[in-house]
């Protein structure tokens, strides 16, 4: 048992517990904050796997911008809590059962073949692997067209959000 494994187990436990807490908490604000914790732990894992640029993007875009948007909408609507309807009480056990089956399938698919179980992540990396320079080079060299299409996508998303929430004009207000 090396240091990296202990570190991984600790970070993984924090990630899984924060994800479960996100589901379990009844207040949507707490759910959002638990999800922020989860994103930050995942960003730490990215850093440990030599993905510095992606880790920073994860923190700024996911844990920063997207979660602030979530918190803003929750507080704008004042919809932290929902009245329990209880229309489908059998839904919870069925969903948990399906989730457990999914986890079991994933674990079985990963570990039933012992030949690739020992493949570690300890291979050498070149200098600057995952740095903003290397990502930028490959992004603007080989993936220039998808990158530009992404800008169009973000523009369409922004305009779409504005148009959807704007309402249908003055006569409906």
């Amino acid at each position, binding site marked *: 048992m090396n240091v990296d494994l202990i570190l*991984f187990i600790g970070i*993984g436990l924090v*990630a*899984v517990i924060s*994800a479960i807490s*996100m*589901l379990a908490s009844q207040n*949507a604000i707490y759910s959002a904050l638990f*999800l922020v914790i*989860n994103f930050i732990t*995942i960003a730490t*894992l990215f850093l440990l*796997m*030599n993905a510095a640029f992606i880790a920073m*993007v*994860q923190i700024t*875009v*996911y844990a920063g911008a*997207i979660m602030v948007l*979530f918190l803003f*909408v929750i507080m704008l*609507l004042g*919809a932290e809590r*929902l*009245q329990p309807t209880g*229309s*489908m009480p059998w*839904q*919870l056990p*069925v*969903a948990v059962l*399906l*989730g*457990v089956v*999914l986890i079991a399938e*994933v674990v079985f698919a*990963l570990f039933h073949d012992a030949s690739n*179980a020992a*493949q570690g*992540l*300890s*291979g*050498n*990396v*070149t200098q600057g*692997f*995952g740095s903003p320079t*290397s990502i930028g080079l*490959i*992004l603007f060299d080989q993936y220039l067209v*998808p990158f530009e299409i*992404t800008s169009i*996508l*973000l523009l*369409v*998303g*922004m305009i779409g*959000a504005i148009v*959807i*929430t704007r309402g249908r004009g003055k006569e409906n207000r």
Partner: protein
Amino acid sequence: MNVPLNYLLALSGVLFAIGVVGVLVRRNAIVIFMSIELMLNSANLAFIAFARSFAPAAEALRGHVLVFFVIAVAAAEVAVGLALIVVIFRTKKSIDVDQVSSLKG
């Protein structure tokens, strides 16, 4: 990071399954959206783990590029989705997904 690749993929799968359970269990539309973000994030974790696994090759950075695009698409998706939730709340006075069963507002 001297950890077997399978452990990271297992963590990714567990987080994905938690996200699936969240979509199935919760009625709050915002929490359902957060569960979808959790699923996207677990997929990103698998991408980065594979990129690190194939690390000496120059093609391994394509995993990072794909994660970059996934994050950009997630940002656009969240903006549009939260706008839809705001509009639904305006007409239904609730974001319970059980209430959004009729097509005509």
